[in-house]
């Protein structure tokens, strides 16, 4: 694994950009926790705090036409892919202005404009989708890349292995990014896997795979660029194991009985934001006033987003049965699935079909 120190810091502008990206995710999610505690948003809330370097580094390597598939811990991926903080928060409020009009919530963020395909709460479920998105590109002759984020817990599922096999067998343009934060909810990797070297598993499918320090945004970015370039130029699927750690509990309901506080504290010493900030300061790149200005900028963005979400409108119940089936040209109003559903469920406000 490479480290910040071994690589040197990129130019100041780019370093500030990376720092900003990580800070945006951090502040958005700190706000989510506040809003959750205030009962403004509900459901399950899984925050990414501590893991920001992964999404921030990988997104740098992507082009707008590429596709991203993520898990239920995906606020950061959505934000850094280009979904506005306002649309993300409005979604958690269940508002019509949310990126999924209140039907997805925290775990199911989607955005067609940025080719962001979720938001999948079944830990491994996004992998076959990513394989298929890559297959479509391959068959259509497009030079696009699909990036799929998933946690290390997903590697115990069958679809992980099916997806590795298919992607390698068909040499599809997909980059698998395993966010190894060591715990599948409360189950430590060593208690769920006979082989804990995850990159080695991908290697077993003849996929180029390597492990990266997931707390080091520069290392992540460098590895991601290398992998994405290889995928885009026809090198077949690639795999990154990003070794990271979540500083917070699995979800808002998790009492964290399964790990020692001292372990968390030890990892927090390698906070990806502090790590980059310190390196920049050491290189004379980040005067205190610039850091203060950066924080103020990000705080303003999040504050505006909260206002946007807070002032949104609840998705009307009259729209409940829309999007179960597509609206069709001869049936623009109900969005039901056929003569019977269309005729009755919308009218009665029920979703039984």
């Amino acid at each position, binding site marked *: 694994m490479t480290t910040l120190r071994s690589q040197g810091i990129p130019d100041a502008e780019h370093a500030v950009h990376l720092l900003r990206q990580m800070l945006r995710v951090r502040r958005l999610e700190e706000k989510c926790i506040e809003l959750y505690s205030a009962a403004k948003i509900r459901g399950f809330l899984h925050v990414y705090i501590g893991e920001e370097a992964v999404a921030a580094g990988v997104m740098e390597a992507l082009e707008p036409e590429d596709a991203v598939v993520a898990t239920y811990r995906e606020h950061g991926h959505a934000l850094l892919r280009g979904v506005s903080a306002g649309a993300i928060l409005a979604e958690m409020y269940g508002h019509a202005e949310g990126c999924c009009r209140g039907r997805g919530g925290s775990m199911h963020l*989607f955005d067609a404009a940025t080719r962001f395909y979720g938001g999948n709460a079944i830990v491994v479920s996004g992998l076959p989708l990513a*394989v*298929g998105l890559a297959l479509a590109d391959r068959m259509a002759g497009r030079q696009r890349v*699909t990036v799929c984020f998933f946690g290390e817990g997903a590697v115990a599922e069958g679809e992980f292995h099916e997806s590795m096999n*298919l992607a390698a067998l068909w040499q599809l343009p997909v980059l698998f990014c395993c966010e190894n934060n060591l715990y599948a909810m409360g189950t430590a990797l060593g208690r769920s896997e006979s082989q804990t070297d995850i990159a080695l598993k991908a290697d077993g499918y003849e996929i180029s795979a390597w492990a990266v320090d997931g707390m080091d945004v520069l290392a992540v970015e460098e590895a991601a660029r290398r992998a994405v370039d290889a995928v885009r130029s026809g090198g077949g699927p690639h795999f990154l194991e990003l070794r990271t750690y979540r500083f917070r509990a699995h979800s808002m309901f998790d009492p964290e009985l399964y790990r020692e506080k001292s372990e968390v504290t030890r990892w927090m010493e390698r906070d990806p934001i502090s790590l980059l900030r310190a390196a920049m300061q050491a290189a004379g790149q980040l005067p205190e006033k610039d850091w203060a200005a950066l924080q103020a900028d990000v705080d303003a963005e999040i504050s505006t987003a909260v206002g946007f979400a807070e002032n949104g409108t609840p998705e009307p119940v009259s729209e409940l049965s829309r*999007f*179960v089936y*597509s609206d*069709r040209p001869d049936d623009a109003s109900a969005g039901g699935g*056929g003569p019977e559903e269309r005729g009755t469920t919308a009218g009665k406000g029920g979703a039984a079909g």
Partner: protein
Amino acid sequence: MKTTYREAMRAALRDAMKRDERVFLMGEDVGRYGGSFAVSLGLLEEFGPDRIRDTPLSESGFVGAGIGAALGGMRPVVEIMTVNFSLLALDQIINNAATLLHMSGGQFNVPIVIRMTTGAGRQLGAQHSHSLEGWYAHIPGLRILAPATLADARGMLWTALQDPDPVLIFEHGSLYNVAGELDDDAGAVDIDKATLLREGDAITLITYGGTLPLVLEAAEQLDGEGIDADVIDLRTLRPLDAHTIMDSVARTHRAVVVDEGWRSGSISAEIAARICEQAFFDLDAPVERVCSLEVPVPYAKHLEQAALPSVERVMAAARRAVGAGG
């Protein structure tokens, strides 16, 4: 022209592949083997391995890949050998294909068509013989088709491919060799409406898919006993065309639902409930159901046949309904 159900299916696939270059077929043994039921025989030579794509035995992986390809703009037709094997792909079908449009607030359509065989009658034992299409018909977001006739075998696929939403097509294994006449210019058919295949005034027999031939035979024999039956081929299990059912029941005042699935929690339970909800005062007798006995489908021929709906059981149910003694 004379054709078979299998050949009609193949013609539908060939036609779809020619019409739209985004269409491709993917599944276990669809290519070099020619399809486990020989539906895709010869298509590999015609369209090549990119579009007639053999997959490993990994149902969830390749069904999920089909969903991803649909999201990516293709029009995949995914073949699963039997409905029993589709259970390995339930996560993808139910958690993704059926839900992505809704969860994404209308942003992501999944225009995939998934074909699979269903049903018993060929002594294949429990893990190749079940009829689970009624389960899938429980799921909002899916459209469930059960072609029973040559015209539907030929025509439903293209219509399904025009649907922006996921469509599952259930082909009963006993139908592939059914032969008959099909119009030379047969093509796409409607997939919204049930069909009244036979008109009578004494009773409504409601079925779909593999049990249609035996229901038609029962109707012929009942006619000889002076019991003239309407026969409805549901064709689409979700969304159900309740209008055709209720129109018929309003005329005949009696109904028998024939379904190869198990009775408890089945599509026949749904249909019977709807008749009670929507046509209760038209009824002159309780709704009858003829379903498979509630056992895993056995291998031995006499046991298997005893477990399945039969002409005799349909006739007995009809006689009970009209008060002619069962």
